[in-house]
């Protein structure tokens, strides 16, 4: 009996090895696979790390000075000191508006003709026009202008200015003392880069694998394969292994880049991070293979994979947009995604540390998804033609 059992195990291993070798060769021979599996992650790392940023760094601003008094000039001196602004002086509102319309400047600061007079009476008003079509940038620019004005007016005529955050006046004021936990520099890189791990694993796990079974159906390679001693589980495993390795390489690349290039901290347990990533990758692979086995058509499979995994991971997981701000229904859909939980977990592990309540829930959810999708993929992989 044990002979038979060991024979079965040997057969299993031998077939699995053969199939895995085959899948690996196919994976390596088609450069487009490697382009998605390795080149695209590298590109994304560079783009997200260095290129894409939600932080506004250069603002070109037109300043319309209708009041030529030294007081007015002093008031706006801070703009020149700020590293954010490229200032362009114009002498009429009309000229400024033309610049705005041509998108040559992003904001216009107007110093009205009666500025000095009204400032003396305690009612100094400056006008700021921003292009609201980019709402976030508009808000950030407003903040920059405010703090630049506050700083600029500092040493010269301290008592004249009263901006939002810091002034010292005889009457009592509330002073904000902020402390940003988990991301002291408050750079978007710190949270975009961990999010990248999610994107890359979704790409490799779901998008790439969504085509592997469908391709075999389309090319008719399965019929002969089915009538061999091969078991459905072996077919499935063999398809999982190479893509799992590619996914983990993507993971390693991103983590290395995060730590070495972007100095994202690693406050939690690295082992847990690895464990969670394995879980998420398995869930993604399971989903990709399931889609692939169900659709049996490469175009439909890849579109389905994109629309159900990658796009939601980008838009609904909290990667770009905070789920706190969205309507309940959308948030609920977001919470249904494995990507949302994986993202929360990675960000917590890297930026906040091993916080038990989050780690336990999210890991449990990821285990659930991994089991579910792999189970579904296994059910959908049957050695039947119709």
């Amino acid at each position, binding site marked *: 009996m044990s002979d038979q059992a060991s024979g079965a195990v040997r057969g299993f291993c031998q077939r699995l090895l053969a199939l895995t070798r085959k899948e690996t*060769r196919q994976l390596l021979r088609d450069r487009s696979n490697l382009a998605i599996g390795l080149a695209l992650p590298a590109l994304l790392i560079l783009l997200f790390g260095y290129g894409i940023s939600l932080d506004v760094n250069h603002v070109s601003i037109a300043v319309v000075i209708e009041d030529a008094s030294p007081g007015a000039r002093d008031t706006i001196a801070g703009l020149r000191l700020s590293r954010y602004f490229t200032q362009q002086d114009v002498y009429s509102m009309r000229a400024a508006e033309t610049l705005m319309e041509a998108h040559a400047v992003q904001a216009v600061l107007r110093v009205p003709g009666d500025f000095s007079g009204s400032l003396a009476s305690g009612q100094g008003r400056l006008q700021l026009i921003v292009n609201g079509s980019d709402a976030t940038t508009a808000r950030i620019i407003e903040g920059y202008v405010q703090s630049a004005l506050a700083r600029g007016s500092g040493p010269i005529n301290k008592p004249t200015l009263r901006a939002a955050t810091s002034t010292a006046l005889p009457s009592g004021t509330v002073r904000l003392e902020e402390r940003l936990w988990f991301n002291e520099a408050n750079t978007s890189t710190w949270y975009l880069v961990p999010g990248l791990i999610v994107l890359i694993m979704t790409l490799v796990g779901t998008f790439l694998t969504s085509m592997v079974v469908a391709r075999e159906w389309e090319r*008719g390679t399965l019929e002969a394969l*089915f009538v061999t*001693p091969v078991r459905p589980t072996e077919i499935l495993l063999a398809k999982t292994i190479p893509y799992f390795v590619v996914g983990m390489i993507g993971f390693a690349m991103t983590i290395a880049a995060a730590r070495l290039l972007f100095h994202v901290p690693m406050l939690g347990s690295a082992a847990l991070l690895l464990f969670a990533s394995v879980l998420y990758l398995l869930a993604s692979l399971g989903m990709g293979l399931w889609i692939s086995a169900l659709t049996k058509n490469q175009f439909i499979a890849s579109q389905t994979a994109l629309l159900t995994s990658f796009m939601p991971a980008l838009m609904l997981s909290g990667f770009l947009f905070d789920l706190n701000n969205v309507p309940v229904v959308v948030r609920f859909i977001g919470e249904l995604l494995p990507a949302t939980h994986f993202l929360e977990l990675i960000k917590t592990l890297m930026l906040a540390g091993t916080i038990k309540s989050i780690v336990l829930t999210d890991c449990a959810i990821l285990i659930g998804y991994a089991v579910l999708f792999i189970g579904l993929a296994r059910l959908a992989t049957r050695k039947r033609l119709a």
Partner: protein
Amino acid sequence: MSSPAPAVLRCERVRRTFWLAEARHRVIALVDINLQIARGSLTALVGPDGAGKTTLLRLAAGLLQPDAGSIEVLGIDVVREPQSVQDRISYMPQRFGLYEDLSVQENLDLYADLHGIAREVRVPRYARLLEMTDLNKFTTRLAGQLSGGMKQKLGLACTLVRSPELLLLDEPTVGVDPLSRRELWQIIAQLVEEEHLSVIVSTAYLDEAERCAEVVLLRAGRILANGPPVSLRAQAAGRCYRVTPPPGVPARQLQTRLLDAHDLVLDAVPQSGEVWFMTRAEGAVAAAESGREHGRSKEADESNAASGAGAANAAGGTSNRLPLGGLTVHERAPRLEDAFMLLIDRDEGVSQASHLPALSRDRGNPPQAAALRGSREPHSHELSHGPSGDLNTARADPMNARSEEAPVIEVHDLVRRFGDFVAVANTTFSVRRGEVFGLLGPNGAGKTTTFRMLCGLLPATSGSLRVAGVDLRHARAEARARIGYVAQKFALYGNLSVRENLRFFAGAYGLSGEQSRERIDTVVEQFGLAAVVSGPSGLLAGGYRQRLAMAAALLHEPQILFLDEPTSGADPLARREFWRRITALAQAGTTVVITTHFMEEAEYCDRILIQDAGEVLALGTPQEVRSLGGQGDMDGAFIHIVEQARGGRAA
């Protein structure tokens, strides 16, 4: 296990239907199949397209489940335990899905590993398989870069990496050249003999079925006949004759004439310069004369043809006589193919009434030659002339007159290289107007490459070629309107309906409005597509697909028609229908260039060219080529010529 009988396959009341979602109806693939196939034998499944051969094999392999009935393979209920059956059998599907991005060796290794074959067994096995399939030189080449026939051979090699208890082969030799076909069958025969392998093979080649111990003839999901070839052949006894056409007259012309005598002649094919035919009535010719000795020639001239007709009258009930114009008729031994044609024809009469779903129904159309005749002028008179005398004179006109004209296709020193691989080497030939020109050669000989160059799909490395006066690769688009092209693979839009496909090609050739509608209606009628015209073309059975491809290529009435292996995998019926059309087209002045692996089809051609390894080995009329080969039939001649050339090259 209810019965310990030594059957490898036992079907009881097996029924299987398919729901076609796109066409919204159910088609019957198999009805009440009862079958028992003995262990250790070689069994052939034959039958026209849509007969259910593939479905039966897939059911046996556990890839499909029957709607009703039970199937036991090797004594195991395959419905309940497909895996234990799959562990013990080997199966080669019709379209063997090779991994095209793996090399030949890697494909073989994969299947050897999956079947758990020990290393020491592999070495001699591989050697033998590679030898047999002639793939020795290509072990490192990617499967995707092999020619169509070579892929087929590799598929078979992958299936044969081990000796299973039961081997299922679904049309293993489609697109395989006669040389390799002979080798493949030697291997199979050897396996049966040495290893007592049980083999079930479906095939469109009846000469292959002839080698089997048992033949199962299926049609429209039912078994028509089942037994050893001898007993099947016996059914056609007394109806088979051969006749030699007068000198200078191509056999296909006499054949057409015989086939047109539909009430008397059931079948006729050109064979080794003769025409082999079968009469509807038993002894129709012999009854005319007293003697029945073999080989004794009989004058079937006016007088005794009339008495022959008398016999036919007695049997068939319709008037007429064999249109043989005083030629000598010999009786010949029936072949399996004759039995096949006879049994199908008999069933035709029975099933005409019971209607079959459109997509799987195949034929039952009267010959289309008449419809084709309408399209262009001359030959219709020729055929409708009286039965005698004119055969000898009619011949003179079309070809001879045309031979004076400039050739329609001129190829001079054509060379095509891929890297340092020479696919076509210094090929020179020309084709006259109205000629049927056959391009023959083993797999990978360069036929398809030559074809693609002629059609302007591939640039030539050097040499010159002119088709209808221009090089299509550089010619203006309008020049391409003069040719029609039917590719090797079914190359029409599968998710469009038949009519939509035709409308597209009509438009692509510049036909519009009334003109387009007219042409579409004409070809739909000509090719008997009316029943399927609004169904999706992707679901058509093989025979219909081929007809649709032809119809699309002929919409614009091209001067030249290129056909790349149009009859691969087609059953004898479909092939006959096809060749009747080609013959009629050629008579009407269309030039036809065709590649084929059926050597008997070379007999239909005016001239043939045999190519191997890119070189021209022989060029001439079938008669000339046959005599060059020194042996009786075209198959033998072909093998002889190719082997001699290869021997020469090796030395």
